[in-house]
């Protein structure tokens, strides 16, 4: 007997279903079943997205804090560091571990990989490790310290030992430090890298600012158009809508190609300006391979993402509000600013957030038209993935970017609700 049933008023008999079970329980059971059925429909997709999306991203995040190259290939030295965490430059025992590991790494050809790992933080270590491994493979026995120092004096460099000690820890935040232009100095203290090597913080800031600028430009261009579309009779607005939707449906690479043909210094726009005498033939304007190129092309590409949410909000604003304001004596400007504009704010928020979120992750367009000053953080992630192959650093940069996007996405969901996203 549940408490609820005990307190049933005596006058009315307890409600039951046809087979005598209490209605409340039956309903609850039916509800549970319905919830379960609904959930069951989602399960296949949920598993699919978890496997193809969530797991890979989790793996990437793990890689950003986990780099076992050193500890895998230098096991004796790693064990030595664990036993002696405080030593700067060790004596014979430490060097023995180093020499034996180096000799082993010559055999399995891993010296280059270990050298590359140390090279991230101490340039010049690559050749040190490779030649050191070749030498160490020939050592017949101790004294290892003396023999290694005879090979190269660098082996006694406290900075080298510092870097090795940190690299021996497979789990590290070092790549996040690198992704924020930080490094460990020779004493092992965290510090900013030399000014001429700072790049990532600047790129994050640039990505952020350019995305904000692009969102603002999209708003500036999108607002009047959305207003026009929302207030024209349907048969016109449907036609004009095609002009918004066609770019939306056109391949990103096609649009980027178009901008290349337009913006080149021997391209259509410059030719037009030369032909009309706006600039001389030798005064052609550099519109591409710089920030201008990135901004122009990305504004064009993302503009539909601003117009569509604005339009759907403006569509719901009754024109009678404006007429009422005017008849009450407001000037057109006042009526617009005080009555119409505030009602479009949800659309502005949705459009700006959407454009901003999409812009900060852009890679293809900046890579093709941005040159070097128009590059965004994604281009550096791609560089470390594909060229320098410092994957842990790429993962750390990606994780920071991801954090920013997730934060904005959460904000979007809070403020606008993802259910309200619409296309076309």
């Amino acid at each position, binding site marked *: 007997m549940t408490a609820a049933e005990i307190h049933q008023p005596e006058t009315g008999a307890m409600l039951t279903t046809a087979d005598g079970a209490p209605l409340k329980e039956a309903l609850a059971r039916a509800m549970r079943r*319905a*919830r379960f*059925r*609904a959930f069951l429909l*989602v399960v*296949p*997709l*949920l598993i*699919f*997205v978890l496997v*193809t*999306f969530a797991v*890979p*991203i989790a*793996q*990437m995040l793990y890689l950003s804090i986990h780099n076992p190259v050193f500890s895998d290939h230098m096991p004796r030295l790693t064990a030595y560091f664990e036993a002696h965490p405080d030593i700067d430059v060790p004596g014979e025992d430490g060097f023995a571990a180093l020499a034996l590991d180096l000799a082993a790494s010559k055999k399995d050809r891993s010296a280059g990989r270990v050298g590359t790992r140390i090279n991230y933080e101490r340039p010049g270590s690559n050749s040190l490790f490779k030649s050191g491994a070749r030498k160490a493979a020939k050592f017949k026995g101790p004294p290892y310290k003396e023999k290694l120092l005879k090979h190269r004096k660098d082996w006694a460099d406290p900075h080298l030992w510092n870097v090795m000690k940190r690299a021996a820890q497979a789990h590290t935040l070092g790549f996040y430090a690198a992704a924020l232009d930080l490094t460990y100095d020779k004493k092992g203290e965290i510090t900013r890298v030399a000014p001429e090597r700072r790049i990532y913080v600047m790129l994050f800031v640039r990505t952020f600012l350019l995305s904000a600028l692009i969102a603002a430009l999209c708003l500036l261009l999108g607002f*009047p*158009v959305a207003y*026009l579309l929302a207030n*024209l009779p*349907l048969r016109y607005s*449907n036609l004009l809508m095609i*002009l*918004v*939707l*066609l*770019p939306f*449906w*056109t*391949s*990103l*690479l*096609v649009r*980027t*190609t*178009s*901008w*290349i*043909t*337009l913006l080149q210094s*021997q391209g*259509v726009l410059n030719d037009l300006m030369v032909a009309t005498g706006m600039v001389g033939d030798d005064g052609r304007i550099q519109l591409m391979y710089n920030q201008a190129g990135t901004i122009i092309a990305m504004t*064009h590409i993302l*503009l*539909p993402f601003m117009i569509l949410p604005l339009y759907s909000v403006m569509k719901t604003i009754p024109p009678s509000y404006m007429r009422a304001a005017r008849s009450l004596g407001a000037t*057109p400007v006042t009526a617009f600013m005080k009555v119409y504009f505030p009602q479009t704010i949800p659309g502005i928020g949705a459009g700006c957030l959407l454009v901003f*979120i999409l812009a900060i*992750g852009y890679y*293809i367009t900046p890579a*093709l038209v941005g040159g070097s000053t128009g590059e965004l953080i994604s281009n550096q*992630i791609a560089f470390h*993935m594909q060229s320098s192959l410092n994957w842990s650093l790429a*993962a750390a940069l*990606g994780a920071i*970017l*991801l954090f920013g*996007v997730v934060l904005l996405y959460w904000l979007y969901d809070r403020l606008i609700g*993802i*259910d309200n996203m619409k*296309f076309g």
Partner: protein
Amino acid sequence: MALPAHASIGERVWHYCYLVICGLIFLFLIAPILVIIPLSFNIEPYFTFTYKMITFDPEGYSLRWYDKILTFGMAAPEALRDGSWWRDTWENATWLHALKNSAIIGVASTLFATVLGTLAALGLSRPEMPFRRAVMALLISPMIVPLIITATGLFFFYSGAGLAHTFPGIIMAHAMLGIPFVIITVTATLSGFDHSLSRAASSLGATPVTVFRQVILPLILPGVISGALFAFVTSFDEVVVVLFVASYDQQTIPLQMWNGIREQISPTILAVATILVVISIALLSTIELLRRRSERLRGISPG
């Protein structure tokens, strides 16, 4: 938008200025896409209008770049154009190879995304669905997370799982990227869906499968199809993931374009781009027709 009769001069001036501004913005939106179409017929290997093109001299125009789409990558492009020439084209032409891959990947991933996405959308649009908001947020997130991050993650994951450089790997990745679009369009169609219809059908003795096929499916079909088209376009246009996890056997059209632009931008790219613009116009028209049909079905006035 028509001006009222009592509008002042200032208002009139502003009104026309406003229309001109809007016209310029529309020009900004559409001109870059249209400008490549005539340029792709340029007889010269330039990306700008030649004198002959502006004066509409037929000699300034040619189909040579379209021909190049067929011949690029062939073993013997100069041979006589008979049966074996066409076989050579079909087997070796780089763009056709890319087209075949794009088609295989696009169709397979669209099927995946549509089936899984529609099922999930049916569940998500039920009022009883638990954790609706969180699940929805997760399922939509592939659209929001920057592709470079998704691609990076997939690269590591696929390398370990043996899916890198395989068609199934890319098909799964593209299906995942297309799913948010299917969910969004199908749930939008379902938002106007009257659930009493399916309850009525059930109470009249229809099995759940019958209810789905006879009642729900006809009503949500336009949404499903436009979701599928979105998913297809997503796959057909995607390059970052392909760049990271595909090998040269899975080269797609956008990847070939990307390589072409970075390597040696030739007007062949413009010819391909023109063909893609024509395809997107066709897709857009299909979507538009579907949307109107869906609204008619659901009794909403066109809008």
